């Protein structure tokens, strides 16, 4: 976790030009002495590009500091309030005198702690919306009732676990407030090493240097994620990282990769990488190899946990890794500072550190493959404060986009490329299931949006029920995957004329000619509804310049405007032959064709 010694951290901070960095205000409320943690917090902030200003609340003044009129360390612009409320300080009897407590007393103590938690959270939120990080209560290493504690209902460990549950759910009910699991820190370091009894007695400082370092690292995972500095892409070397040995020399059957030793450290490491993929982290490969050899392992080795479809981009060649990493960043369209690079070679690691300081580099020492999994799992660089459904699909979406891009570069012309995508579009009228997505698209779409009219779900429902309005939806899939519902067209009729009130496409599917199917289908629908002409509009915004000439290019005629403030209006007659649908779609499924 911290490779440097405590003194070295002080030394680095003494020399650093901190005053040029943006400030990160951390206020610590506590009933114990944790001053030893300050250098760690400052160092972690420095690594992230910030200058931490750390303010300590008065000892054992958690409630007072949380309320307005305390010593003033909780302020409106405080970035983070870190709270240490050791159970020994909140309730000596629950912590140390549990064996002689009556049930009623236990209940009283619990209620008091509940009240404290609620008061402190309320007090802080009255003053600031800054991030609250509250360290949970540590379970006793040696419960007062000994092994009997686990056998009775509401033993000491159980009571403390329940207090943690209360704290956790109280924090969950408040925006930007999080539970920091000290018991995880304790377990990782080990109980005897986590505490320093000497300083507990000399100065009410319970945690050892190791304990302080672990807690600081854990707290910083939240701060990093809160500041949006969490990493989004993991770039992996292959030989001696994903498997033991060198594929080009040892061959498919010679590399170490299996469920049992000496291959098991690598399959376990790969599983950890796969977990990151499932959390929405983009995976890429950067390896000096023949790319055929590497992909053969991915495709045919029975113990590969990672598969080809997990990898969004790969640079497998003999060029230098710094160049290749930059290529990967361009290919995936992500920033270098959101990338983490993992390699076993000290040479490559140092080269990348020197050439691209923005990229975070993790070194996996070749002789320590058994530690690979823990090195990755403990880094916390990819942690986010919450996981959305979109996070879980992100890895796949980036992979598909990179594949399309690659094909586009290889295809001789645009139409051949579009044809090779084997696109299938599906047109339907809005229904109960698609209604929320349709409203969302009208709210969010900016670029390919002719009129930028924003509608709520209630608006769309009203259209759905209106006789003279049709809401068309468009779905797109291709040989790489399903893009989902990506287009909306709203057609309003008045006598023999239809008005295209809304025409929009999600930016995810631009440049694939989908708009030509959409408009052709809209005109077809208007004709089926017995209209004789269609009116279309374009309202300019800061973002929709690209569709300015959409209608004139498709044979619509301009209607003169009375003033510059109006939108542009166009008209097309439905009496002649209609616009043709492009031929490069594999299939056009439409409710109109049924």
């Amino acid at each position, binding site marked *: 976790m911290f490779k440097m*010694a*405590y*003194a070295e951290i002080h*030394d680095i901070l003494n020399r650093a030009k901190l005053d040029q960095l943006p400030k990160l205000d951390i206020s610590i409320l506590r009933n114990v*002495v944790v*001053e*030893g943690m300050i*250098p760690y917090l400052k160092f972690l902030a420095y690594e992230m590009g910030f200058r931490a200003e750390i303010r300590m609340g008065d000892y054992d003044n958690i409630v007072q500091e949380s309320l307005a009129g305390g010593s003033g360390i909780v302020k409106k612009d405080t970035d983070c309030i870190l709270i240490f409320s050791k159970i020994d300080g909140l309730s000596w009897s629950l912590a140390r005198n549990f064996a002689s407590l009556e049930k009623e007393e236990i209940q009283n103590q619990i209620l008091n702690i509940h009240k404290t938690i609620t008061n402190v959270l309320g007090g802080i939120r009255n003053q600031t919306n800054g991030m609250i990080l509250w360290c949970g209560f540590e379970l006793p290493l040696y419960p007062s009732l000994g092994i009997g504690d686990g056998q009775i209902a509401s033993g000491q460990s159980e009571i403390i676990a329940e207090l943690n549950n209360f704290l956790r759910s109280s924090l969950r009910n408040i925006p930007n407030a999080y539970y920091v699991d000290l018991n995880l820190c304790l377990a990782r370091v080990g109980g005897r090493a986590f505490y320093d009894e*000497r300083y507990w007695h000399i100065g009410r400082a319970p945690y050892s240097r190791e304990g302080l370092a672990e807690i600081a690292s854990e707290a910083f995972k939240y701060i990093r994620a809160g500041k949006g500095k969490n990493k989004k892409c993991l770039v992996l070397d292959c030989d001696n990282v994903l498997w033991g040995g060198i594929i080009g020399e040892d061959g498919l059957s010679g590399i170490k990769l299996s469920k049992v030793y000496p291959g098991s450290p690598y399959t376990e490491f790969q599983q950890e990488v796969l977990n990151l993929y499932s959390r929405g982290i983009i995976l890429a490969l950067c390896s000096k190899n023949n790319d055929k050899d590497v992909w053969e392992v991915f495709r045919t080795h029975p113990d590969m946990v990672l598969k080809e479809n997990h990898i969004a981009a790969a640079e497998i060649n003999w060029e230098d890794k710094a160049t290749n990493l930059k290529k990967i960043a361009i290919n995936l369209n992500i920033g270098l500072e959101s990338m983490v690079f993992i390699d076993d070679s000290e040479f490559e690691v140092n080269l990348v550190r020197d050439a691209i300081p923005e990229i975070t580099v993790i070194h996996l020492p070749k002789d320590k493959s058994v530690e690979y999994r823990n090195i990755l799992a403990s880094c916390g660089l990819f942690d986010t404060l919450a996981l959305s459904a979109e996070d879980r699909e992100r890895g796949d979406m980036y992979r598909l986009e990179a594949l399309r891009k690659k094909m586009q570069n290889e295809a001789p012309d645009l139409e051949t490329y579009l044809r090779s995508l084997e696109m299938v579009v599906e047109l339907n009228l809005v229904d109960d299931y698609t209604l929320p997505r349709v409203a969302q698209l009208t709210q969010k779409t900016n670029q390919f949006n002719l009129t930028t009219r924003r509608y709520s779900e209630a608006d769309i429902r009203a259209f759905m029920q209106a006789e003279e309005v049709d809401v068309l939806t468009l779905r797109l899939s291709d040989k790489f995957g399903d893009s989902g519902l990506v287009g909306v067209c709203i057609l309003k009729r008045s006598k023999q004329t239809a008005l295209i009130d809304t025409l929009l496409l999600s930016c995810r599917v631009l440049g694939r000619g989908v708009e030509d199917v959409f408009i052709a289908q809209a005109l077809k629908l208007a004709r089926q509804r017995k209209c004789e002409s269609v009116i279309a509009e374009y309202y300019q915004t800061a973002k929709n310049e690209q569709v300015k000439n959409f209608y004139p290019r498709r044979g619509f005629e301009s209607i003169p405007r009375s003033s510059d403030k109006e939108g542009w209006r166009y008209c097309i007659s439905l009496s002649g032959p209609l616009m043709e649908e492009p031929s490069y779609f594999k299939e056009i499924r439409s409710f109109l064709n049924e």
Partner: protein
Amino acid sequence: MPKERVFKIISQLMNVPLDQVHEHSSPETIAKWDSFQHMNLILALEEEFNIKFGDEEIMQMGNAGVIVKSLQSKGVRD
């Protein structure tokens, strides 16, 4: 001699130039050397020399010279 290493760590922890650290350096002569920083100094020394001080030893370490003697008494020779 552990003396040089002790002086260096004191200079790093207290953020003072190395040539200003001597055997009589103490909380009285170095502004930043308060009780919290004393604790951090002990943690840094224990890490550097891979030893543990007893609680009473910690309380008696009044200046740099005492720290060096205390290390020597634990068998630290260089």
